[in-house]
Structure formats: C-alpha cells, structure tokens
C-alpha cells in the first residue's frame, strides 16, 4: 500500500462519522427544525452502541441500539420543539448537554472494557480496481452506509414528491399546512432520521474508530457536523465535500507534523477550522451573498392558530 493510499484510507475513516451525522442533521434542517443537540445524540449512540455490543457480543445489535438511542433523544427533542413549540436553540443546547451527561452514566460500567473493532469488508471485484479499489471498496460497513445515505438523501430530497413536501415544510410551514400536509408529523420523522444518523455516527466512534468507551469521546464532532451542514448550504453533495475537506485537512496536518514540516502545531491544529471558514467565504462570494438556509429554519410551527 502506498503512502497516498494509506492517507486517503485514514481521511475516509476520519470523515465518515462527520458525514453521517451531517447528512442526518441536513434532513432535519431541510424540514425546518434546527437541532443543535447532535453532539448529545452522537455520544448517546456511542455509549449505547458499545454497551449493547459488549453485553450481547453482537456488533449488529450494538449498531441497532446506537441508532435507537439517537432516535430516542431526537424524540425527546421533538416532544419539546414540536409538541410544546419551545425555542429550538435552547432545547438543542440542552439536548447536547443532557446527552453528554446521560452517556457518562450509561457507559460507566463499560469503562476500560476492550473490544475488537468491526472489521473491514472488501467488495468483491470492485476492490480489485487499481488505486480506487483499495481506497473506496476495502472499508468498514459504516463507510458504505455513508455512501448509501448520501445517494439516498440526495435522491429523496431532489427527486421525490415526499422530498419536495419535506422541503416545503422547511421553506414555509404555513403553506405546506394549507395544502393539507401534516407539518408536525413530517418534521417529527425528519428529526427521527437525524437522530438515527447521529446515533450511527456515534457507533462508528465507539465500535470502529476507537473501540472502547470513555465519556466525552465524541470530542466535539457533533458540533463540526452542524457546521458542515451550513458549509454545505443544505445540499447533500456539498456535505460530502465539507466532511472530506475537514477530515482531510485534519489528517494531512498530522502527517505534515510527522514528516517534520516546520509549522507550529497550534497553527496546524487550527488549520481544519481555518480552511473550512475560508472555503465557506469563497463559496458565499461566488454565490453573491444571501442565505441558502431553509426559510422556516428554527421557526416553531403551531397548526391552526
């Protein structure tokens, strides 16, 4: 394996949890709900995933539990912001803090229990393609899932009637409601999808990337996922670019340090953030300003009032 292949492999594994969580949040935001609690749902997924995987001995059960845990937290959030129409920013921040705390309790009995990570699966035939094969098709199942999620979401949002309705809820809830669509139900489902993705991303951390449990192990990746949604201007394909740009710069700066490039590590550590902001500025300039956010993002909707 060449160094370039090795770097790309690492970039993909570092970017995948960001991408999965960002895609889920993107769908929720396209439906008009801003859920700042991604970090909390993600770490609950990490905790529930490894807890169930260790208890049952089955990685698949762990992944399922992670998805359910993310959805459960999203459901609590939905109860607050859809059922009670509370402020989405406040509820989201509370959800993030709640998830961090609760995951510490759930994970406590599993601290320091080692576990083999989920292995990689080579796709027959495709993995034999020179260069691209080893990089793209000798990955773990989560990476394939992230590919499928992006394709699925892009198709759903852009090409289906249901996707159009979901976007309508995000642009103008009142108009969607007037047309007879159940705005709150659609938003609820979008939130659940976001929670499931965040939980899945969490499971990737605790079952594949670093297969053990410690509290706080997401280390802010949920917040990065939120930023990627904005960076992507709410478009699934751009979320791929955002996640891989961020993951890529993160990994490259580690390699640059190892190779002895004489740049202060503090500046290196800040590089992913700087590059992301720079790219965002350039994109906005190219578009000529203006916001790409769904018009009704963050606005509570109360039917018939």
């Amino acid at each position, binding site marked *: 394996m060449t160094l370039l292949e090795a*770097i790309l492999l690492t970039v993909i594994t570092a970017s995948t949890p960001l991408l999965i969580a960002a895609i889920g949040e993107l769908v929720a935001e396209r439906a008009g709900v801003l859920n700042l609690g991604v970090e909390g749902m993600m770490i609950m997924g990490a905790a529930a995933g490894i807890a169930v995987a260790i208890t049952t001995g089955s990685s698949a059960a762990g992944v399922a539990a992670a998805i359910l845990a993310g959805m459960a937290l999203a459901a609590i959030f939905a109860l607050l912001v859809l059922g009670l129409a509370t402020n989405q920013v406040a509820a989201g921040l509370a959800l993030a803090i709640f998830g961090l705390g609760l995951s510490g309790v759930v994970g406590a009995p599993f*601290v320091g229990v080692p576990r083999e990570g989920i292995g990689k699966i080579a796709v027959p035939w495709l993995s034999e393609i020179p260069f691209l094969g080893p990089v793209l098709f000798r990955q773990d199942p989560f990476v394939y899932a992230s590919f499928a999620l992006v394709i699925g979401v892009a198709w759903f949002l852009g090409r289906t009637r249901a996707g159009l309705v979901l976007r309508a809820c995000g642009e103008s809830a009142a108009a969607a409601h007037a047309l007879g669509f159940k705005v709150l139900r659609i938003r609820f489902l979008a939130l659940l999808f976001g929670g499931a993705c965040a939980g899945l991303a969490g499971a990737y951390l605790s079952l594949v990337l670093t297969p*053990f449990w410690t509290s706080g192990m997401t280390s802010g990746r949920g917040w990065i996922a939120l930023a990627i949604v904005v960076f992507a201007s709410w478009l699934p394909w751009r979320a791929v670019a955002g996640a891989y740009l961020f993951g890529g710069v993160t990994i490259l700066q580690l390699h640059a340090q190892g190779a002895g490039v004489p740049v202060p*590590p503090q500046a290196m550590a800040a590089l992913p953030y700087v590059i992301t902001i720079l790219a965002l500025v350039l994109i906005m300039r190219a578009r000529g300003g203006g916001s790409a956010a769904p018009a009704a993002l963050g606005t509570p909707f109360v039917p018939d009032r």
Partner: protein
Amino acid sequence: MTITRRRTIQGAAALAGAAALPGAAQAQSRLNVGFILIGPVGDFGWSTMHDVGRRRMLEVLGDRVTATQVESVAPPDFDRVANQLARTGSRLIFTTSFSYFQPTVRVAPTLPNVMFENATGTSTLPNLSIYNARFYEGRYVQGVIAARKSRSKTIGYIASFPVPEVIHAINTVMRGAWSVDPQMKIRVVWVSAWFNPAREADAARALIDQGCDVICQHTDSPAPLQLANERGVFGFGQASDMTRFAPRAHLTSNVNNWGDYYVERARAMLDGTWRPGDVWGGLNSGMFRLAPFTNMTPEETSEAERIRDAIAAGTLHPFEGPIARQDGTEVIPAGQRLTDDQIRAQNYFYRGVDVAMP
C-alpha cells in the same frame, strides 16, 4: 457529601484556627479532601489513576477522611470549582494537572486556609505543595525497548502540548534509544489535547503510515495502543497498565501510583504536620512503576529490567552529560548531570532529535 450546619460550624472553626496560624495547618479530627481532575475518571489513564489514589486514601484512613471529586474540569472553570470545594469544607485540595498549575498559584493566596497540592507543578507557596513522579525514568527504559523492537529504526511519538514535561520525555526516550542504536530516529505529532481518543488514533495512523513501528504516547487514552495492535506494530501504554487493550502490541506502561502519597498528605493534615513540599518520586519511590514487560524475548526483558533497576538504584542517570541542544550549543559537559530545576525547565531538543521545536 452533604453539608450540615455542624459541618459548616466545624469549617468556620477550622478557618478561624488556621487564620491564627497561617500556612501551618493544625490537627483535625476529620478532613474533607477535594480532587479536581482534568479528564473523565473513565479515561483509563491519568485521571483514572488519580481516582484510584483517592480511593486508596479513603480505604487506608477510613472514617476520618471524606473526599469530594470534580472531574473533567476545564482550566477556565478552575477558580469556580476550587472556591466551591473550599466553601463546602475541603481543607486539602489536589489539583491534578499541569494545566491547573498557574490557576492554582493564582487561587491559593486567596484561600489561605486551604492547602493545595498540584501535580506536576513547578513552584510552591505557603499553602501549595507540588508533587510529581519521574516518569522520564520509565521513558528512558521505553527508549531502550523501542530501539530493540524497531525494524524501521523510527519511533513515533504522540505528544500533547509542547511543555517541558513532554519535551524532556521525548529527549529521554531518544537517549534510551541511542544507548542501543545511535541510528534511531523519531517522528513527533502534537495532537493539542491530553485526551481526544479519535484524534490520538488518527495521529497513530499517520505515524505508522510514515513508517514508525513503535509508538510512544504522551496522551491519556488507550486509542493509540489499540491502533498499534490492529496495525501490527508495538506501543507503550500511558498512566495505567494497558496490556488488555493491546495484547499483541503492548510492551510496557508507566503505571502511576498516587495512593500512598495521598494517604501521607491527608494524614499530615489530620496530624497538623502538613508543610508545603516538593516531591518528585522516581522508580524507587513507588510513585510509579513499569507494567510487566509483554511481547518481549527473555533477553529483551532482562535487559529492560537491568536498565530499570539501574535507574532505580541511581547508578544510571537519564540526564547525564554530555548534553547539547539541536543547534550544537553545549548544555552540560560529560560528567555532570542536569539539576531538577534544569530538567523541569527543559525547552530544547537534544542534538540529533530531528524534530522542529514548536
């Protein structure tokens, strides 16, 4: 811990008593000890071992001592947490990170009736002690082992922050490695965190991809070692015995042991004999030990044991001259040793360490 009125009165009495005798604590029948931890108790490294020490203290001193512990305290929150502990009756507070040293120096004079103990700090006050272990002694042994184990002759070092503690550890690893093979090289990645498992693992991946086949870590999670295991290279654990995370990769770990020190200091508070001190315990003090050597041949093991015992006995000194900086200027000539203050202030790499100082 519950705060009863009696406890408050007790605290007030202790406060009045100590005010009469600044600095010198007087004998107390009961004591609450505060602990402030930089990471989660479950990091399985640095903070875990402070927690183990706390539990040891409670076990030995029994009913006379209680403890209040606050984990994952970010340095900006330090003042608030320290004041809160002092208000709720902690008369002795262990602040267990170098990141808390400056905050502790700032807060200690404002709470003259509370005795502070900072781990890895560099200076004392009338109510501030510092304590640390000579982890570099273990790093020297790691360097020797790394040189025996490495085929690519390149060590990968996952570093946290460019502070003297980390810098002199890197120097010491190379000293140990060069004592076996002067051709040994090192690559360093700074992850700007004491604890960030996924980034630590990414750093390990980068180093292994660049040809390092023995990984040293100066961060607290078992992630790098676990990755070394997966990739079929070797590594050393940090702070606790991490053998079970990497049964095929683990060579040894520096295993911290703060319990005996915590017992001694809490007992000094109870007896009224607490004085500010500066303790830097080596391999012979029991403040840390090396975990059993694993994945090594009998010859490698006996060599590592011989070096370890020589350091503990004081016949081998990791900071023996000659020492020169990267640019060639001499620090000390042959026959001399660095003083403790010189070690603690080390902010340069040795000649031959091919790494840019950040």
